[in-house]
């Protein structure tokens, strides 16, 4: 690796540290950041596992003696989620027993405390050099127009000879015999690149000639023939289409590299092909494959052993049935069911209690007039929140399935979005005695989808109202400062750090997590901003004196370590920003 490479890989490398020793963590964070790594401290196992699962960490430094020891038991779990993640285990316990236990778990390096930063840096560099992210990229890129042109490129005999690794004489002989697709122009043989790849593929299928290929092509499902070395020797067009890969990048490649984008084969118990070779029986398993964009594809993989004339298994027919759509639909239905389960508990429970009491003549007569009004407002707010949540679920479904339409027009933000939303959310704010200060700055007409922006702004206000203290004030400022910027901020009580953390690092999985209404709302607001080529920035933390300090900064900075966390001095700041496009009102200017 060249020095420049090391530097650049460091710059992008995400190193996570998990240790209960605050001093070591601070020291490591400081040193690693100085060396150019993106380092972060993780305290909660749940957060760590989520980040490992979502592949957000490149190297993990794990103190196995943290929180009273036994942390090495986490390693198998981490390995199960991401077996290629390099782990550097650290410990202050110099016993051979601990070292043995840790080594058994397959860590990359075991470092004794106090840590030697030079040693850690060398290990990190090695880990990154090994890591798939920092090696030659193995992700196949969808062929661009230029690549398509390349596939149809006409090659002369020299280039074809180099491509096929055959001598020019042999190539000329094969061309003359009509064995390889070629044409003679003047006294020169010409070849088309993708035709000779196709010829190579058929040849690779060995003695089975074209018949197998033709049979494979009759199947609608993706099918590949894999040999004992797990290399693909033939496949059909449906297989290529399912994985979105050109044929020349499949034939001769290991199947795990093609279908899983993995550098190592799967373990035998979960690899149907290896199992089929071993058991000589047909095997079916559910596999998670990845497409070109890194999206998960849920596939049933059936491996059928193919016997030769002697009854030996020489290859396995791998059939891939892509069930992603069904899987996604089930996942979404589960999400909807979970949502309704929660809502019937919370929102409908409250509404039913209030309305049934008011509707009952005897009961209603005993309730004081002001309380009756309070119950009605409470029901109205609950129903409004439920409406917003259902709408958010629908929008999230549309976003996830690429069905969300963005109909942009020239919009006066204040009149068409800000004031109507504030009016609609007034009962909710009144219920918590929250007031709202609106500051409309230098506002130019903005080119956006008015309905979607209303959804985003409503979700921002709802989230703020949920976490803001009773009787507090929400500040909402809107202006055009090059971009169109909408900021909503307030002082809250007990903003759950984890929820905002999930949103802040962009790793929220809508359908897998038990998402709260506030998380869902902010997720939708962010997606709407992104559809407008913008973004949503979420800041939350503690107010210390007159300073706003983020949770991470608070925990990582020594000067705050002696301060007690006071639950009612937390802040939230949501900033939605979309690019401003210079447009003019049809009616002659800003209102």
């Amino acid at each position, binding site marked *: 690796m060249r020095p420049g490479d090391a530097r650049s890989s460091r710059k992008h490398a995400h190193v996570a540290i998990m240790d209960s020793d605050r001093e070591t963590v601070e020291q490591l964070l400081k040193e690693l950041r100085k060396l150019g790594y993106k380092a972060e401290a993780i305290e909660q196992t749940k957060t760590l596992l989520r980040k490992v699962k979502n592949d957000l960490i490149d190297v993990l430094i794990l103190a196995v003696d943290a929180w009273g020891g036994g942390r090495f038991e986490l390693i198998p779990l981490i390995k199960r989620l991401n077996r290629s993640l390099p782990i550097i285990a650290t410990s202050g316990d110099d016993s051979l027993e601990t070292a043995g236990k840790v080594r058994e778990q397959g860590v990359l390096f075991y470092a004794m405390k106090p840590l030697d930063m030079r040693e850690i840096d060398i290990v990190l560099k090695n880990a990154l050099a090994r890591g798939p992210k920092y090696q030659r990229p193995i992700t196949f890129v969808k062929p661009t127009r230029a690549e398509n042109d390349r596939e149809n490129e006409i090659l002369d005999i020299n280039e074809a000879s180099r491509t096929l690794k055959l001598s020019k004489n042999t190539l000329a002989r094969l061309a003359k015999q009509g064995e390889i697709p070629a044409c003679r122009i003047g006294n020169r043989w010409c070849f088309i690149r993708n035709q000779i790849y196709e010829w190579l593929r058929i040849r690779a299928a060995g003695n089975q000639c074209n018949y197998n290929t033709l049979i494979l092509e009759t199947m609608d499902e993706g099918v590949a023939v894999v040999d004992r070395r797990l290399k693909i020797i033939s496949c059909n067009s449906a297989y290529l289409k399912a994985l979105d890969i050109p044929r020349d990048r499949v034939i001769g490649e290991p199947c795990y590299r093609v279908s899983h984008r993995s550098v190592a084969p799967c373990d035998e118990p979960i690899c149907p092909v290896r199992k089929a070779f071993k058991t000589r029986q047909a095997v079916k398993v559910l596999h998670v494959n990845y497409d070109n964009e890194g999206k998960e594809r849920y596939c049933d993989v059936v491996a059928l052993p193919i016997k030769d004339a002697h009854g030996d298994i020489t290859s396995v027919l791998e059939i891939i049935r892509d069930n992603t759509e069904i899987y996604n639909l089930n996942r979404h239905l589960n999400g909807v069911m979970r949502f309704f*389960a929660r809502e019937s*508990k*919370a929102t409908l*429970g409250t*509404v039913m209690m209030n309305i049934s009491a008011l509707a009952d003549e005897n009961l209603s007569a005993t*309730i004081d007039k002001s309380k009756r009004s309070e119950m009605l407002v409470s029901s109205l707010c609950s129903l409004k929140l439920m409406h917003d949540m259902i709408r958010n679920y629908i929008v999230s479904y549309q976003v996830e399935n690429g069905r969300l339409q963005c109909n942009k027009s020239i919009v006066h933000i204040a009149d068409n979005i800000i004031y109507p939303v504030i009016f609609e959310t007034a009962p909710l704010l009144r219920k918590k005695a929250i007031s709202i200060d609106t500051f409309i700055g230098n506002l130019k007409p903005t080119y956006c989808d008015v309905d979607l922006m209303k959804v985003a702004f409503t979700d921002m206000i709802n989230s703020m109202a949920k976490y803001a203290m009773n009787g507090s004030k929400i500040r909402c400022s809107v202006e055009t400062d090059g971009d169109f910027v909408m900021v909503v901020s307030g002082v809250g009580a007990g903003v759950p750090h984890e929820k905002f953390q999930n949103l802040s690092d962009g790793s929220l999985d809508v359908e897998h997590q038990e998402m709260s209404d506030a998380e869902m709302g902010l997720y939708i607001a962010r997606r709407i901003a992104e559809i407008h080529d913008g973004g949503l920035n979420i800041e939350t933390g503690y107010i210390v004196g007159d300073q706003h300090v983020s949770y991470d900064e608070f925990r990582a900075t020594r000067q705050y370590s002696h301060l007690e966390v006071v639950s009612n001095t937390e802040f939230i700041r949501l900033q939605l920003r979309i690019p401003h496009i210079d447009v003019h009102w049809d009616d002659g200017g800003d209102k």
Partner: protein
Amino acid sequence: MKSMKKILIVDDDVDFVEATKIVLEESGYDVEACLSAEACLEQLKANVPDLIILDVMMETDHSGFDLCREIKRNLKTKEIPILMLTAVEQKYPMNFNRAAGDETWLPVDVYIDKPVEASVLLERINKLLR
């Protein structure tokens, strides 16, 4: 003068607690509320109510189940009738109503699925406190 019966609501849904509190107070009960199982145990050390209305999914998905067993194990609180009011069935589709009363598994006196009408709740409470 006959003293008002004390009811303790244990539920993490503030809006639901507020709504139920109004209904019960207006019907002549003295109502207190706790937003978690942990807070309830603290409260029970100081005051013993005449009835507990208990939700299930609070700190965890099974907080209410653990809490009702804890209450029935404690000599000081084991006689307090418990009315379990929850939507846990929506999440775990089991027949909890049939299990209600089982001393080991679900030692509650009444099990009601949310949402519930105010009059139904009052009727069940009145019956339990009669």
